[in-house]
């Protein structure tokens, strides 16, 4: 299968305060490359400060990389060209309660990306919102509700609806499953896997929970201090962890794959 998202030598460094002739730099991300195919999931595992969130921000376009290029379907994604990027790469955050605007109804919330990115008229937009809500397991009538009327699991479904409404190709899940209760988390995992099959989505999953990573992902990338220390097929990496960071992570979660 052809490569969907191809990341080449992405690096990011921040300038720190220093003297003008003694400039200091902080390398948040050393050059790294990877590629994802459609219908596949790449998991990124690492401790805080390992650069996984920086990588997610660069992919989604919220930050510009210091060097390196990102290709989507062989096409170069330019920095600051949000219109092109936001249709194809979408992101879901950890805390869905704070990422939904509390003063807008669900319809208005989901309308925003459609008004900005599509040429649909009002009737078509409403229809699309209705079908998208049904796709994530909510009712079409929920569009007149406000975010506070929903429970945590339902809010996360609305974030998912907002992510998939533009028919993207890549979705970045930044700890999107961590804050959910276990019984709702398994529902969400099932929903995400179903959508992946239906829409041919590629996921980039950022998570600590190795159980979810094992179940959900095809490939895994373990990061430490801005560098990729180990990568490969999830099963193989977890069966036979080579790097110290990986072994430490698996030890700390009492995680053993036979």
């Amino acid at each position: 299968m052809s490569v969907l998202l191809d990341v080449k030598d992405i690096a990011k460094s921040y300038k720190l305060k220093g003297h003008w002739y003694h400039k200091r730099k902080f390398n948040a991300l050393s050059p790294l490359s990877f590629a994802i195919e459609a219908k596949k999931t790449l998991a990124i595992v690492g401790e805080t400060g390992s650069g996984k969130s920086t990588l997610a921000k660069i992919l989604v376009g919220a930050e510009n990389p210091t060097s390196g290029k990102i290709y989507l379907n062989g096409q170069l994604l330019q920095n600051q060209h949000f219109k092109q990027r936001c249709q194809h790469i979408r992101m879901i955050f950890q805390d869905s309660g704070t990422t939904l605007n509390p003063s807008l109804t669900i319809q208005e919330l989901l309308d925003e990306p459609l008004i900005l990115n599509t040429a649909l008229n009002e009737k078509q937009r409403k229809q699309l919102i209705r079908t998208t809500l049904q796709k994530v397991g909510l009712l079409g009538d929920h569009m007149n509700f406000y975010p506070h009327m929903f429970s945590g699991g339902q809010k996360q479904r609305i974030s998912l609806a907002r992510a998939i409404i533009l028919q993207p190709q890549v979705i970045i899940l930044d700890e999107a499953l961590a804050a959910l209760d276990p019984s709702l988390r398994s529902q969400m995992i099932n929903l995400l896997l179903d959508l992946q099959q239906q829409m041919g989505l590629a996921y980039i999953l950022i998570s600590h929970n190795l159980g979810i990573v094992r179940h959900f992902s095809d490939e895994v990338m373990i990061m430490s201090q801005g560098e990729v220390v180990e990568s490969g097929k999830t099963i193989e990496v977890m069966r036979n962890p080579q790097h110290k960071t990986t072994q430490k992570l698996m030890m700390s979660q009492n995680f053993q794959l036979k």
Partner: protein
Amino acid sequence: MNLLDIRNLSIELDTPSGRVLAVDRVSLSIKEGEVRGLVGESGSGKSLLAQAIIGVLEDKWHVHADRFHWRGIDLLRLSIDERRALLCRDIAMIFQEPMSCLDPTTLIGEQLSEAIDTSQLTGYFWQRKKQRKDAVIKLLHKVGIKKHVQCINSYPHQLTEAICQRVMIAIALAGRPILLIADEPTAAMESTTQGQIFRLLANLNQLKNMSILLISHDLENLTHWTNTITVMYSGQFVEAGSTEQIFNKPMHPYTRALVDSSTKANLQLPSKSRLMTLPGSIPVLQHLPIGCRLGPRCPRAQQSCVAAPKVSNYHGHKVSCHFPLLRETGKKESVRHKASKGKR
């Protein structure tokens, strides 16, 4: 001997539309030197129960119980002051988000020395100051902080979250409690630091024979560290038993669903297959179903579930269900392995 023995504890909340039963007849007992897990999803009333035990609930909550004994003393007969004196000597509690529980304007050393009771110090008043300082350093060493000078002279924001949680545990240990209640001590922490905190608690349990009530929303993270587990759902008692019983032979459909939906317990499942899950979402306090509150989501629900089930006991494995899963075959190999490791 049972340290804490609670039978049929109910907590009610006054609302404009009448009283709501937030916790409905929950029983809990803790033996000496035991680590008991209390598992429940959000809104299951597990934190309320912990707050009711140490008696810090506001006036709008009303607590009733058939029996509420602490080491043979009936707490319900004591006056509030007597009860407070008793419990603050014997029970300590730590909370989630240690950063927000410590005073941000006071040095760690001062906060710790505040927690040390004067009755623990001996000698004349001019010796007390030094003794107090030594006690602070000793406490810090106990929770595994080696750089005590640096720690005493810093404010909470200068320390990492794991160190802050250790300081919280040190403050809790200052009164030499018999029971430590840990309300989600590792929520929002990284897995490596989570492991450190759990290991510290396990050490304290083994060395000091301190009982621990470990509260968590996640069954899979807990099983490694507990001897016995109590499961709650939406304010009702679900199931209680030893860790192996709960994990290998869950009798309640809810516990069964929790175990089945855990990705860690089902490592033999092919990746990307569908996980077992309960339909629907957790009911809110204003709209609780009558009878068994799992009813609308339960795969085994029948007509009699509109009445709340009684607790039945199968060899120490208590379950509250009309139709428990009694004959379960096919033990999960990986789980048994884990549970036996946790007992060590």
